């Protein structure tokens, strides 16, 4: 019986992984957009990006998640009612979790990517322009590949924090590893066993991520060591 419960908990690992992967993909997009805004020549874009990163990083993850899951739909519904539209807006825990984590880690990625972009020598962009490359090709051909390498340590760190933060989605009712472990703990009266199992799941994920990203870092660094030193 214990084994069956353990399998359910680990099976819910798929939900945790989907949440983490979805949030990561969105966070990278937010981060790229945020970094480009922060480095843009427009004061408006710079200010907006600055407000985004400092507000999101100034509020606890759990509170942001509660805001997105409970407060946001309430606000939307009040606006809908005021506009005379009879539609009831609701967020699914998975969507709310993904959006919240993407917002949070988009802000962290913004800082990571901005730092990496700033570290690329300016002359390279000027040279690209002198060769007649457009802004898009300069970004995808010159900046992006180098940014990927320079941003990897920060990216790794953000991913590890994101992976652990997915556990918060259990508090808004997502059936992930954590909530399934809670269910199993209450059903069997063995909370320690099942929370330990959940902890082991997260630890295995973070450890394998660290190993994989360290390997990736060594690959991306190939041929750059001698040049930069």
């Amino acid at each position, binding site marked *: 019986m214990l084994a069956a419960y353990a399998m359910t908990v680990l099976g819910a690992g798929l939900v945790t992984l989907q949440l983490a992967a979805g949030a990561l993909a969105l966070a990278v997009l937010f981060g790229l957009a945020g970094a480009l805004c922060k480095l843009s020549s427009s004061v408006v874009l710079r200010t907006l990006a600055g407000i985004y990163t400092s507000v999101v990083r100034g*509020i*606890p993850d759990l*509170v942001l998640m509660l805001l997105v899951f*409970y407060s946001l739909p309430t606000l939307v519904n009040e606006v809908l009612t005021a506009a005379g539209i009879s539609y009831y807006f609701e967020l699914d825990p998975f969507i709310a979790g993904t959006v919240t984590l993407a917002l949070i880690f988009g802000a962290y990625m913004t800082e990571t990517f901005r730092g990496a972009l700033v570290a690329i020598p300016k002359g390279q962009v000027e040279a690209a322009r002198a060769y007649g490359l457009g802004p898009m090709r300069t970004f995808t051909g010159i900046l992006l590949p180098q940014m990927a390498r320079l941003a990897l340590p920060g990216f790794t760190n953000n991913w590890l924090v994101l992976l652990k933060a997915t556990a*918060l989605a259990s508090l808004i009712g997502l059936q992930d590893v*954590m909530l399934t472990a809670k269910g199993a703990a209450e059903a069997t009266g063995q909370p320690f066993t099942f929370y330990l199992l959940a902890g082991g799941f997260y*630890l295995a994920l973070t450890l394998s991520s660290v190993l994989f990203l360290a390997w990736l870092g060594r690959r991306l660094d190939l041929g750059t060591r001698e040049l930069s030193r």
Partner: protein
Amino acid sequence: MNWTIIADSLPLYAQGARLTVLLTVSALAIGFGLSLGLALLRNSPNPWIRLPIASYTLVFRGTPLLVQLFLIYFGLAQFGLLRQSILWPWLSSPLFCVLLTFVLNTTAYTTEIFAGGLRHLPPGEIEAARAYGMSPWTIARRILIPAMLSRSLTLYGNETIMMMHATSLASTVTLLEITGVARNITLTSYILFEPYVTAAAIYLCLTFILVGAFHMAERRWVDARG
């Protein structure tokens, strides 16, 4: 919008903020003391000292704080032996469990931050101290700890903010800090928007105060070294 309920519950928020600050400060203060020693031992050449500390920080940094909190608060009740021990009044109190979890968690992060600060210390500084005849204790007090602290100030500043935000998890085990207060108001007044927005605004203010304080500390202790 119903802000009068919020205005009426401002005293509750004030109490919640007090508990948030109390949890943050006590966890950080105890964690700071423990980390100073653990960071020095973390770089020890003796693997029997170094590896247990490394595994402790690995486990606590590799798992979610929520799991750690639930393991300690809900998990320990599984053991009858513990339930009958004299420790049980402590281990069944949410406040004690929350504080224990936060201390264990922040100590793991802070130990690694401090130990990392030490690793970039030029070996010459320690050799010079030894050549002056300083004892290991004096070297730790005069050279290692000041170098460790000034080098890790920025990262430690981030850790204090993370810790302050992490205290919001205390609301999951019935404690009425800022998030707990907000949650209670949503349950008693049936409003979902205003309580969380107010909580978020309070956290934002606390974060800005911490960020400002660490900027000042950096100017005072880090930039001044040149």
